């Protein structure tokens, strides 16, 4: 890794800036974890209180959609990790390929999620007067499902946007001098994946033997 990092305003030496950007991102990721902690607390509370009825709701979730999506998202995460490493070694063609693979897989995830939403809506799994199951904890599970997956999808969309920005920079100028940026983007994307890995068992494995 060469120290030809593109310096920006307050920094006077590259070593400092190299640490500062990921440091700022880690600080931001802390806030993200606390953000999701709020909704996980809601899950814990309503599962504890809702008992069996809550799990009856959980059994309705689309296991295969969720599982396939997990695999897709993990692969996209891997691609991002490879892109980040390749950039440090300045293997630009590989970086380019992996960035686009990340974007592609992320988008596939969103499409699969959309199909799953379509299935859920047609099965009356939206809380409200036409809800499929009994009013109560099962509905709370689905309230969690819609809120959590929705917020996660927004995060992933932002993540895809950030990777697209990297691809754009790569196209217009020299990405290899911006390795703190690519590292920060990778960190963010990995967090989005970790959130999904937490959501996956809560949404698709709960209540199943």
């Amino acid at each position, binding site marked *: 890794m060469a120290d030809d990092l593109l310096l*920006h*305003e*307050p*920094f*006077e030496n590259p070593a*400092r800036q190299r*640490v*500062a950007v990921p*440091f*700022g991102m880690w*600080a*931001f990721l*802390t*806030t*993200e974890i*606390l*953000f*999701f*902690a*709020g*909704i996980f*607390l*809601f899950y814990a*509370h*309503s599962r504890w*209180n*809702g008992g069996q009825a809550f799990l009856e709701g959980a059994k309705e979730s689309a296991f295969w959609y969720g599982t396939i999506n997990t695999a897709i998202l993990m692969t996209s995460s891997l691609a991002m990790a490879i892109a980040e490493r390749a950039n440090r070694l300045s293997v630009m063609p590989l970086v380019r390929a992996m960035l686009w693979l990340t974007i592609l897989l992320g988008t596939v995830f969103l499409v699969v999620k959309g199909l799953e939403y379509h299935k859920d809506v047609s099965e009356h799994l939206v*809380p*409200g007067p036409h809800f499929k199951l009994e*009013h*109560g*904890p099962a*509905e*709370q599970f*689905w*309230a*969690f499902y*819609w*809120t959590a997956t929705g*917020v996660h999808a927004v995060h992933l969309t932002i993540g895809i946007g950030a990777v697209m920005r990297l691809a754009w920079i790569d196209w217009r100028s020299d990405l290899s001098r911006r390795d703190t940026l690519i590292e920060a983007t990778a960190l963010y994307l990995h967090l989005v994946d970790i959130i999904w890995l937490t959501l996956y068992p809560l949404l698709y494995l709960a209540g199943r033997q």
Partner: protein
Amino acid sequence: MSTRATALVDRELRSPSYLQNGTDLRSWLLTTDHKRIGILYALSITFFFFLGGIAATLIRMDLVTPAADLLTNDQYNRAFTLHGIIMVWFFLVPSIPTTLGNFLLPLMLGTKDLAFPRLNLLSWYIFVVGGLLTLFALVVGGVDTGWTFYTPFSTLYSNSHVLLAAMGVFIVGFSSIATGVNFIATTHMLRAKGLTWMRLPLFAWAMYTTSLVMVLATPVLSMSLLLVTAERAFGLPIFDPRAGGDPLLFQHLFWFYSHPAVYIMVLPAFGVVSEIITCEARRRIFGYQFMVYAMVVIAVIGFMVWGHHMFVSGQSAFANLAFSFLSFVIAVPSAIKVFNWTGTLYRGQIRFSAPMLYALGFVGLFTIGGLTGLFLASVPLDVHLTDTYFVVAHFHYIMVGGSVSAFFGGLHFWWPKITGRLYSERLAQFAALSMFFGFNFTFFPQFVMGWMGMPRRYHVYPPEFQPWHVMSSVGAAVLAFAYAWPLFYLGWSLFKGEKAPPNPHGATGLEWQTRSPPPKENFDSTPEVTAGPYKYHPRESTPDEVEQAQKPQEP
């Protein structure tokens, strides 16, 4: 050659000050200079401060009589909700960090800018968007949930614009988070050579601990508001008791943010007051390390006391005891700070400039606010006092008496540095004194009527409380004057005030080692630090510092 003459020569030879570095609107709205962003924030929060103030005026006018004569019940509910939302999220939380903090932190650390200048500008735009959304909620009819957004009232029963207001506050949270992340990264990464942690001025420590609290607490508020939005907008049963949801879950999430938020408001005030008192008493701070650790301890324990807002909410008796215990414990570091400020005065060279009057006023009001906190930390007494005017008075003593006094003190203290002009000392001293008396006149009666059982958020009330309400409203008139008055003489000084020298107070901080107002790069040469802050003491100081400490200061 006198310092003033040097400054004049410098100004001609070197780069222009940050104020002259581009004067069109674009150079302000697209600036990444932390000093200009500080000014942008200052203008925005001043607007919100007076907007919240108008709501407070309406409330106090309406409460002069026990009957409903000025406002209807719904208008009254909207007025106090507006007052709370605006003052907490659009004034108090951003007040000191985003204005004085933005301006001074890089100067105190001896660097050119914050670590992420563009993120800093973005945070202001996020703030503006959140503010506009909240203003829009106000224009189309207002909100009546109180600033606390308690469910199920906010999600299922209120027929006002809860969604707009909640989204406004949600968005403004990200501006807090951005500022917090930026300050933390800056403090870690960009301290000048030789500026170790234990040489940081207390204001920088205050900014650092405040940022920690911002970063760790705000996201929880964001999620709780998002859940409120999901329940209200899409009918998802989250807190709805009919579906097995728990309204107390919302309260836990909300206070997990909103109690630490009090420390977001008051920790920066500690920083400001420490700077002013040391400079105006020309004395090293008493017990520097204790002051630092006290702030860190307050920031940490501040996260563990939220349950004391819920003693009568139906949470378990065991939880009440634990939260009560921690609330008593957090009184200890607060007391340390008050004693140490007092100790700093001992053997000083005290000058009663306007910033010093504000700072001493802060110590007094914060002491009263803190002591009444002990009343509320005792569970049996809190059962009687909570949700009455006693609580209203208590948190106003901390957040308004404390935080706002410190904000005004800091504003005056650094005014010459920020604007390059001197203000009229006499008029400012008068404002500081009238704020102290007006404040006590407004809020002390509220302790008494709270004890007598006057519940908060009451539009009409039994007649026996009227004398106290009248007293409070009269005080509020004095207070309103004290808040508006600085607008005139500070505004006047911008145009007609005498030009300020680089270091008009003879202070020792790094921010005073550069020109007033500073150039865009902050320092003409990169500073190096060789000693701790507050070198006001004669013994270890150089001879001319002693001389400077002893000679009478011009106002």
